[in-house]
């Protein structure tokens, strides 16, 4: 046996990397498993540091041990792949994914684990939504006493879907995500066009413009979410629509907060002037955790899009390297797909 280009035996590449891509070495690695063990150590010890409002810093060193294991595993895993030059797309050699790109399968498996996260959030939401009486139902029943907080479910839609202007940021975001899904498949389409069938400069411009448009739509999504949560906005007088000048308050200024146990909605005043007070911690927490988790995914996509757009601007995407856009696109469509469920059930219903 002879040493290969990387200086190690071609049939026995070093477990510390890099892999022997030139000879089609399988992409086997123990380091994802080691990284998972590190994450497990981190989460277990982190939970022990903060236990029922008490701090126990004796577990803190183990938190850092967990993080160190994660970092070390990531570095070695990355080193194993560092010889990959982006042109040879490794394919699975075993059933059931034989001949399919390994990274594509990996992306799908990752997305399905993401699906489990959102399913957990949705099932929790459904449990509480159907298990706790709605605040407006409690108010109408009269089964409340002024000055005493009632624990009830106050859906964010009571505020958000109360008028067209209130719902405008969420509705705009829905259209923005759908348009962004379309722009990213257009970027992929232009990257896939066979060499010679299109001018390379035209290809470069089309790809980075479509990716740039996707970036702008993602930024718009997050901006509107911040406006909806924290800032609110001003609606000017529009005479021909008969619209009066008014303010659309943010959820924050409406008091829709995860720690609010004395929430007062302006609808909850009876004919005697008594005001019902509600403990909305559960409903507000469900809303912010679920939509915030989704928003965090959009933020992650924005970071990825920044890199992709820059790379497209340098003209790096060709039919051979278009898979990067395709795999990122799968993630981005998944984010859109989750919003398809979040929007009607958290914003509209």
């Amino acid at each position: 046996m002879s040493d290969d280009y990387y200086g190690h035996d071609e049939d026995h590449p070093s477990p510390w990397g890099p892999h022997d891509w030139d000879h089609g070495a399988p992409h086997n690695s123990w380091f994802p498993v080691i990284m998972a063990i590190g994450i497990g150590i981190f989460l277990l010890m982190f939970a022990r540091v903060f236990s029922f409002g008490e701090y126990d810093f004796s577990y803190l060193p183990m938190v850092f041990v967990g993080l160190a294991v994660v970092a070390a595993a990531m570095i070695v895993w990355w080193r194993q792949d560092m010889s990959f030059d982006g042109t040879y797309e490794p394919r699975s050699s075993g059933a059931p994914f034989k001949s399919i790109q390994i990274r594509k399968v990996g992306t799908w498996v990752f997305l399905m684990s993401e699906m489990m996260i959102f399913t957990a959030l949705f099932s929790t939401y459904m449990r509480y939504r159907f298990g706790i009486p709605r605040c407006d139902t409690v108010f109408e029943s009269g089964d409340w006493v002024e000055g005493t907080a009632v624990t009830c479910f106050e859906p964010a839609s009571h505020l958000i879907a109360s008028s067209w202007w209130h719902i405008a940021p969420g509705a705009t975001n829905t259209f923005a995500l759908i348009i962004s899904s379309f722009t990213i498949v257009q970027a992929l389409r232009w990257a896939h066009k066979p060499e010679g069938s299109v001018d390379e400069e035209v290809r470069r411009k089309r790809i980075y413009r479509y990716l740039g448009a996707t970036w702008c739509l993602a930024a718009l999504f997050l901006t509107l979410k911040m406006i909806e949560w924290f800032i609110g906005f001003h609606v000017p007088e529009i005479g021909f629509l008969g619209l009066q000048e008014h303010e659309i308050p943010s959820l924050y200024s409406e008091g829709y907060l995860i720690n609010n146990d004395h929430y007062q909605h302006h609808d909850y005043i009876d004919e005697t002037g008594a005001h019902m007070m509600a403990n909305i911690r559960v409903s507000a927490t469900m809303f912010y955790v679920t939509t915030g988790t989704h928003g965090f995914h959009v933020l992650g996509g924005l970071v990825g899009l920044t890199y992709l757009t820059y790379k497209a601007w340098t003209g790096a995407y060709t039919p051979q390297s278009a898979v990067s856009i395709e795999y990122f696109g799968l993630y981005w469509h998944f984010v859109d797909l989750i919003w398809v469920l979040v929007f009607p059930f958290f914003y509209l219903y």
Partner: protein
Amino acid sequence: MSNTIFGKDAYWMNFFGLMILTAIEVGAVGSDLSRDTTLTVLSVVAVPKLLMIAAIFMHLWGSEDSRILTLTALFPAFFIIVMVLFIGLTHPDGATGLPAWCRPGTYGL
């Protein structure tokens, strides 16, 4: 992907379809429908939207790998059904009636 829908480009047709369905969603909420009717409309509209995004934009339809990747995508369906149906919808006292071994505080956590 070079599929067509009604002889037109699949991406464009999918895009227009999604825009129309979203407009229906927003319109259903803006109109004076009952809460149950609104939920029904929203649920009915969400299903084709999910399928359209997965099938056309995520290439689960019309690609050579579609079959096995669709099966991969459906793999967590069992767990989703368990969580949504047996925890989300049917478990009585789901928030408070859990057995002691899966409540906070057990195992010192």
